[in-house]
């Protein structure tokens, strides 16, 4: 327009690759609206929400996370799939081992949308947990849209559970957990009481018992099979083997064998998904499987020890409090 008849001056482009920070803001509003349009309640968690409450330093996330009321999780995922998003390929055993979260990707977007039906470490029934977090919700602006987020103590629990769970970056997890601890230390007694009550109601009090106690928050918990599975997961370390081991707790033998077989010797489709650059030859896939088997064997002693400890704890009496 300024140059006269150049029609490209007023072009509205679709093709430009989105900056990551912009994409995460838009994707958050997009995912929340998609859920709302379906009548599904959702809460944005982690990322900017944690920064908003001073639970971590502001930084650009690589994805956006929304926690959807569990009964609507599949409907929200399907609605996003109809809009061009697709599930991030992952090992079949891993997908079966993590049924509560779906990572979605899109060719035109540089970020993932992680749709959670449940957040690991909240050991109460997923619907009960969601309802408790929803009851204390607030709103935070994403791309000009007011999106529901957990309240302060709910966000603290999410951040703490994220921090105590093994991750690919132990240093970052430790740093983030320390930030949550500092934030808890700075709260008043009423807030700590609300934190304890919400931890108990959502079943986060067991997984977070040592952490909460360290920061002067006393919350009751019982040693349930879910808590034992959690302890196996966290004791197994940030490994795939540890993740698989945690899913074996309390499962029938048939299911255990199925998961172990998938983990040990994945299907050709799984190998292709996880290694898209791999030549489509049987020898190449076999080499990947053998490498994987070697890594799994190296990680197994820790996971097996955690499983054994879990079995030894089965006869333990319930714990009345975190201390």
């Amino acid at each position, binding site marked *: *327009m*300024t140059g*006269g*008849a150049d*029609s490209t*001056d*007023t*072009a*509205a*482009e*679709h093709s*430009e690759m*989105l*900056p990551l*920070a*912009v994409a995460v*803001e*838009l994707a958050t*509003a*997009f995912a929340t*609206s998609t859920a709302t*349009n379906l009548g599904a309640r959702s809460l944005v968690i982690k990322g900017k929400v944690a920064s908003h409450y001073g639970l971590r330093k502001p930084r650009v996330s690589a994805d956006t996370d929304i926690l959807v009321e569990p009964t609507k999780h599949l409907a929200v995922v399907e609605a996003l799939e109809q*809009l*061009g998003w697709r599930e991030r390929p992952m090992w079949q055993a891993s997908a079966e081992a993590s049924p509560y979260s779906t990572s979605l990707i*899109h060719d*035109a*977007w540089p970020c993932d949308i992680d749709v959670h039906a449940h957040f690991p470490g909240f050991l109460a029934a997923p619907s009960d947990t969601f309802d408790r977090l929803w009851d204390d919700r607030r709103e935070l602006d*994403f*791309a*000009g*849209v007011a999106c529901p987020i957990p309240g302060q103590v709910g966000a603290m629990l999410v951040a703490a559970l994220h921090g105590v769970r093994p991750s690919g970056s132990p240093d970052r997890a430790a740093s983030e957990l320390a930030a949550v601890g500092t934030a808890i230390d700075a709260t008043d007694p009423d807030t700590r009481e609300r934190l304890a009550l919400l931890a108990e109601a959502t079943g986060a009090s067991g997984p977070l018992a040592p952490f909460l106690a360290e920061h002067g928050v006393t919350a009751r918990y019982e040693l349930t099979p879910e808590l034992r599975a959690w302890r196996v997961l966290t004791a197994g370390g940030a490994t795939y083997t540890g993740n698989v081991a945690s899913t074996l707790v309390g499962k029938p033998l048939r299911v255990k064998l199925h998961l172990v077989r998938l983990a040990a010797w994945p299907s050709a489709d799984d190998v292709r998904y996880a290694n898209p650059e791999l030549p489509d030859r049987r020898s190449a896939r076999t080499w990947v499987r053998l490498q994987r088997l070697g890594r799994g064997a190296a990680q197994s002693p820790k996971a097996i020890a955690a499983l054994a400890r879990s079995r030894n704890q089965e006869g333990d009496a319930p714990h009345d409090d975190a201390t």
Partner: protein
Amino acid sequence: MTTPLERVRPLARVAANDAEYVLDLRAGSGMREPVVLRGPALAIWSLVDGTRTEAQIVDQLVETLGAEREVVARDTSDFLATLRGLGLLAAAAA
């Protein structure tokens, strides 16, 4: 031309890098990725605020840019048609 132009709602909008990234969040909009507006496109879009008609937007742009009215009017009309095609203008204005 005599009806004030208005954007659809809800929209997700992020301003960055001298551009605005816009995504239609309405159910059934079908928009799968954001539209990127910058330069004159962003100038026109910024004036679509529910109070200005197309003629008033052209007046404002002529005053701001100092360009010929005929050129501004044609480009504005073309771009508003693009916005209508994208479904970003409210039905009453379209």
